[in-house]
């Protein structure tokens, strides 16, 4: 057990996995010599050698395509995409290959692959270092999509993702890479597909994931002073979705608000609202509300306006209580 940032927790997770299993390899742009542009893999090349911590040429399609081939022959590759904004050249390899290989081969082949990608805004990264592309991947059968919000979960979910027999897209909230410290146990596993209730409350359910968890928490504390008790759920995994936890909470509160950084239209919030409306319709006391990024490209100067920060979440919680 040690007190770690998310960057340190992820590194610790990869190091443990690489020690435990010689088939685990890391590949990506600048992951070796420099330890990744965010230093998540700092020191791993020295420890495990350049054959297992591989600095690749600059092509995301090549990184993921090569990792798929590795995964089909006994390796457990972790492919790093330097920024989630750069994942699109690998989209075909993820959606048409990694996601479908088990299915299309009748289970003859599997792709135990983890694709790590720092995502999200709040770091003055502009269009191309701020995006949240998770919904593209949640729409694809055969992929799992994970998004941790704290160092402990980051390590535990990463270990579970590496153990998983199927491809997992692992979105890392880079805005909080170093913002929080946590007690992180050795050899921790956090199972995929389990949400966590991080704050209990009887009035309204607030659903968030990744970096926005902290904004959601701040908003919940703000409205608590007005007597609104928020139940905050950290999704942790988008696919598989822990509908059971969400459903139980919404049946209890009768109201819910969903938060994500990605744009509103066809964002993952739409899926959550639909599923919960289908399941909890007669328990609902008010229309569901989404607080999300706007339907604009991610901006540079006005990112604080774009992001669904606490100052936008708190009014949504109050509105949910009006009806």
């Amino acid at each position: 057990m040690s007190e770690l940032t998310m960057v340190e927790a992820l590194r610790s997770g990869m190091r443990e996995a690489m020690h435990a299993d010689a088939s685990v390899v890391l590949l990506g742009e600048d992951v070796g010599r420099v330890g990744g542009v965010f230093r998540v893999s700092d020191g791993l090349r020295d420890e495990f050698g350049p054959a297992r911590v591989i600095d690749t040429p600059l092509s995301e399609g090549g990184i993921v395509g090569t990792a798929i081939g590795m995964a089909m022959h006994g390796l457990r590759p972790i492919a790093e995409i330097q920024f989630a904004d750069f994942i699109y050249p690998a989209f075909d390899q993820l959606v048409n290959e990694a996601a479908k290989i088990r299915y299309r081969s009748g289970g003859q082949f599997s792709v135990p692959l983890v694709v790590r990608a720092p995502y999200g805004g709040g770091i003055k990264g502009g269009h191309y270092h701020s995006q949240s592309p998770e919904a593209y991947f949640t729409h694809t059968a055969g992929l799992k999509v994970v998004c941790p919000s704290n160092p402990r979960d980051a390590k535990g979910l990463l270990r579970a993702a590496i153990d998983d027999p199927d491809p997992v897209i692992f979105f890392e909230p880079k805005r909080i890479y170093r913002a929080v410290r946590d007690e992180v146990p050795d050899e921790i596993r956090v199972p995929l597909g389990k949400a966590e209730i991080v704050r209990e409350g009887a009035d309204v359910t607030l659903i968030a994931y990744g970096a926005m968890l902290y904004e959601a928490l701040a908003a919940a504390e703000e409205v608590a002073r007005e007597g609104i008790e928020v139940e905050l759920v950290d999704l942790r995994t988008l696919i598989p979705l822990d509908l059971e936890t969400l459903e139980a909470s919404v049946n209890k509160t009768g109201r819910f608000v969903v938060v994500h950084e990605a744009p509103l239209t066809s964002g993952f919030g739409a899926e959550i609202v639909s599923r919960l409306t289908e399941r909890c319709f007669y328990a609902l006391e008010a229309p569901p509300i989404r607080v999300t990024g706007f339907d604009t490209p991610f901006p540079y100067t006005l990112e604080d306006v774009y992001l669904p920060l606490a100052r936008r979440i708190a009014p949504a919680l109050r509105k949910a209580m009006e009806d």
Partner: protein
Amino acid sequence: MLGNTERPGGERGARAADPDLVRVLDDEGRAMRKPVLPIERRLALYEAMVRSRRLDERLERVQRQGRIGFHIGSQGEEAAVLGVAEALAPEDWIAPCYREVAALLHRGFPLEAHLDNVFGNADDPNVGRQMPVHFASRAHRCLSVSAPIGTQLPHAVGLAYAMKLRGEHAAVAAFFGDGATSSQGFHDAMTFAGVMKVGVAFFCRNNGWAISLPAHEQCAARALADKAVGYGIPAVRCDGNDLLAVFEVASRALDTARRGGGPTFVELLTYRAGPHSTSDDPTRYRDPDEVSRWAARDPITRLRKHLEREDAWDIDREAALLARVDAELKEAIARAEKKPRPSVASLFDDVYAEPTEALLAQKREALALDEGGEG
């Protein structure tokens, strides 16, 4: 400027006068030097080539009759496919395009399993989830066919890297066509293979056409093999309709890969004698004279002439082979056609190793709808 049909990539290179083209047999089947492949293997491969051709012709008819939805064949490219297949060691892998069924059958993949895939029946190794001729067999070390072009090439690189890391001394034979050399997957795979020095032999079947686009409009390079230079990968050009040359060139490339000598790019100059697939009509874009010129260079005819010159083949053996192959194919197709569809429940298997709750709910819904039906 010459018309398109005068110089598709395949035709440009396959002239006997081309100095850097590897050939063993001339157009009349005369061995220009002593072939490496023993005569009994030449005979076995001749039979495999004929079987592949008859299978394609028969399945095209079955498709026209509406008994299967689609077929994609390898007519005219049998030497390019089987010459490489013969050079493979059992531990080598195939990263296929979709015209390499004959290579898989050559490794012992049962004809029945292939036809089960073609009919998408309950015994299909892919459980009826892919179109016909999108084969896969882990047991025969052959990856799963994907329709998007060139995507298998980086997989070949990763697989070869995994073998290297695990201390296995085997090669990956990656197959693709001329069109694929324009794809992202090709560029990624050649880039990565070059710097990773992995044991992949890249076999480009340059058959002159990517559906309707002639090879010279696919790429302005003098030869597709020239592309390899930019990736630091040695290249060789080979007459792809000369089984004996393909075998020799493939043997060298695969041997280099197995010995840790890194990748080789092999351009096999051949010709797509048939349509791209049963969905295609090449009369809309191809000069019939070009087709007949290439028919005169047909790889099966050429090898048969060679075997006749060697007194290893004659008209009686030919007739017996055709009768045997046709009977086998007819019977096997009829058997595959009679098998039932995969179960409704199987639709939901293999999306993940373990189904999600969402999938289980959808499965219950589909099964309820199907109650009293096919189960």
